[in-house]
């Protein structure tokens, strides 16, 4: 099955990236947040790879990052300090939360690969002033990438970058369409592997495998009861162990579930919005996409626009309930959570809240999720 390839890429991301570098002779830049415009990197033939954590306990970040900052940023920094990414040619962040920014600045201080860039992605994305500002910042980024690669790019290079990213986004959205089925032919775990594999691979190599999966899903039937349909909402999440636990509960208990959609920056917030085409000014088109995309809550003001997207996903994917996932100490999401929960409940979507740290306490969480699913069963029984 083609779909197994994504798990292989997820688990062997470093091997893939080192091999890619050897095969192509091109450079790789690690990035920390999905506001980095990957299109521009592809235009320069530089591979942008997102740095995620390993979900393993570590003791290397304590001198560098105050323990009150989120476990994700500490886990990310640990990857750098432990030398897992020594093959990178550069690192970059686009301004989002201050937690992750520290992982970047600490990495830059302690493991600087020789090229680094901080992009002050505007926070006021609802302002018309964000676009000219971001274009000014993209010009600075382009000059720095010229320094890194020794190349100059044209509009057609940018157009190529847009097509590479748009093609991947489009197929990923097509895959999500299959999850709307009563009995989805793809599990939440498989989808998470697939979505995250985008961060670790060349989109041009990810795409044919994804298209193959799309073909296979047209006839695929899974030998499992999907159980309750769940939406996951919240912070950065590639909690494979958690989703696996949720989706195998039905094998052990009287209630089961399938994660049918998520609102995370590892999945839908990352790929949902395309760059509008055709465009005579590709750089502007790219900037418009990053300004208009479903925002991180850190940028979602004065209007809280994310709520509409959350309830739309819940409705379109016909969910029975939502689990609001919070990375401990994730301030942007913590400031939204009471309102997200209220919004979901006002829309008659039962909601459960869980707080995550670096590792997943699968046992205790299994009991809690099972209890939540039982309440959904009870509601179904009542009516």
């Amino acid at each position: 099955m083609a779909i197994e390839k994504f798990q292989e890429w997820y688990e062997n991301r470093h091997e893939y990236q080192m091999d890619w570098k050897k095969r192509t002779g091109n450079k790789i830049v690690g990035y920390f947040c999905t506001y980095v415009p990957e299109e521009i990197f592809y235009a320069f033939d530089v591979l942008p790879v997102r740095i995620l954590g390993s979900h393993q306990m570590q003791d290397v970040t304590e001198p560098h990052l105050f323990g009150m900052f989120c476990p994700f940023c500490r886990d990310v920094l640990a990857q750098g300090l432990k030398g897992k990414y020594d093959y990178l040619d550069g690192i970059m962040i686009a301004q989002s939360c201050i937690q992750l920014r520290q992982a970047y600045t600490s990495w830059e201080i302690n493991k600087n690969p020789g090229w680094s860039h901080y992009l002050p992605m505007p926070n006021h994305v609802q302002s018309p002033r964000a676009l000219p500002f971001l274009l000014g910042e993209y010009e600075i980024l382009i000059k720095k990438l010229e320094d890194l690669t020794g190349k100059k790019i044209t509009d057609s290079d940018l157009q190529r970058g847009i097509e590479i990213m748009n093609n991947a986004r489009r197929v990923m959205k097509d895959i999500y369409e299959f999850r709307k089925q009563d009995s989805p032919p793809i599990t939440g775990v498989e989808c998470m592997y697939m979505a995250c594999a985008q961060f670790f691979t060349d989109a041009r190599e990810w795409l044919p495998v994804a298209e193959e999966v799309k073909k296979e899903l047209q006839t695929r039937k899974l030998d499992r009861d999907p159980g309750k349909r769940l939406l996951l909402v919240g912070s950065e999440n590639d909690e494979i162990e958690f989703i696996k636990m949720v989706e195998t509960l039905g094998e052990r208990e009287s209630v089961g579930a399938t994660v049918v959609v998520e609102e995370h920056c590892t999945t839908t917030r990352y790929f949902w919005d395309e760059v509008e085409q055709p465009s005579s000014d590709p750089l502007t088109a790219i900037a418009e996409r990053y300004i208009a995309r479903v925002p991180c809550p850190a940028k979602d003001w004065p209007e809280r626009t994310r709520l509409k997207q959350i309830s739309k996903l819940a409705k379109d994917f016909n969910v029975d309930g939502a689990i609001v996932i919070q990375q401990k100490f994730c301030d942007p999401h913590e400031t939204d959570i009471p309102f997200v929960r209220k919004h979901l409940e006002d829309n008659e979507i039962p909601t459960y809240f869980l707080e995550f740290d670096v590792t997943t306490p699968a046992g205790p969480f299994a009991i809690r999720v099972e209890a939540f699913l039982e309440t959904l069963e009870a509601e179904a029984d009542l009516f």
Partner: protein
Amino acid sequence: MSTYPTEPLKCWNKAKELRENFYADYAAAKERGGLRWMGSAWAFDAVPRGLGKDVYTITGEPYAASCAFNRPVSAEFLKASENYGFARDLCSYMRNYWGSILVNKYAFGGEYPKPDFAWTQHICCSHGKWYQNACELEGGDVPLYVVDVGAGAYPPFEPIYEHRVKYVADQLLDGIEWLEKVTGRTFDDELFLEAAWNDIRSTNKWAEICMLNRTVPAPLDEKSIYALYVFGTLEKSSGAFADFYDELYDEVKDRVDRGIAAVGNEKLRWMSDTQPPWGFLNTYRYIELWGAVSIGSIYTYGLTGMWLYDDKTRDLRPRPLPDKKPGTREEACTMLADWHLSKPEYQHFYSPRYKIDMMDAIARNWKVDGIILHYNRGCEGLSIGIAETRLGLIEKGHKVMTYEGNMGDEREFDESATLNRIEIFLETMGLQKPVMGHEETLRQ
């Protein structure tokens, strides 16, 4: 035991009165037919002044610090925020502030005075969310405007880029139209231009006042500085506050000329970095008993004061006043944007290196012997990069100690353990524990 002469500040009572009036004016604004607004201490408060002379503000950070100073009130507010569903690890200023709205209690008496609009800025990733949620908690009918200042670092840390200043200035210009729309008032450019200049002169003057603390003995100690720097966080564009800083400068200069010390037994000078645990300011007085005076911090100097870092001399100097006052709305917005983007407390959001350089400059030029860093669980924004800051300052040869606490949530501050750490630190720097009855009083 005193080495230097000391005397109270003559303007102390005036400072208290100004501060009390500020909070009373906000509460009583409606009785005068005026307007109220809420927003960050870092907001461009000069702009709403263009709406009239009867417009009053409450700035969230100093208000929340006042709540935290009153521990029973703070406990009530924090509990209300947590019961609403906000995480306990969020900014403790925000939680105190939201709690004050939820409980409907003003820390200075009476019900919480509902604002007419919210006008704020965004540098820390909680700033915009703070007032978005406050507006929601007020019933959803308080309009919000946020100016994003996350436009990158200022020279010498990064080059100056015109589009960065323009981004902020243009948001201010848009904000003026927004203010007219939500209040129904006509914006008075003359009032705005005057307020903009007050902002610039008050933040310049505060930096000049802090320069006087280079003197040995220090004319001001940081516990007193907390009561004085606050005007720059209450409303830096207020003419009364700007005038007060002129008066304060003259008095502190006079203290320097006459050798008047803040702490008569000054033997050692230390500096802090960020907000203290506001409910435990007596810690500063205890440290003074040892003969150690805190001369200030990047926080008290660089939040209210405007400075430029010189990377050649590795020194901080007050940013000079612009050559001329702004003459138009557009000039004032550009001037304010450029002025505030150079704020030292903005720079460290982009890299701990910048904070290390600025703190190193203070440590060397203000003749500091040791640095005490507050690992402040209550403020993610000003604790950003603090662990790298510690490493960087040690690398530059400074003596650094840390303690963990929370500026606005007393449950996260262990007073006894912190005092033990401080005592050990002071002993390692050659001071001896004072034999005084007063000490036992403090530690009870």
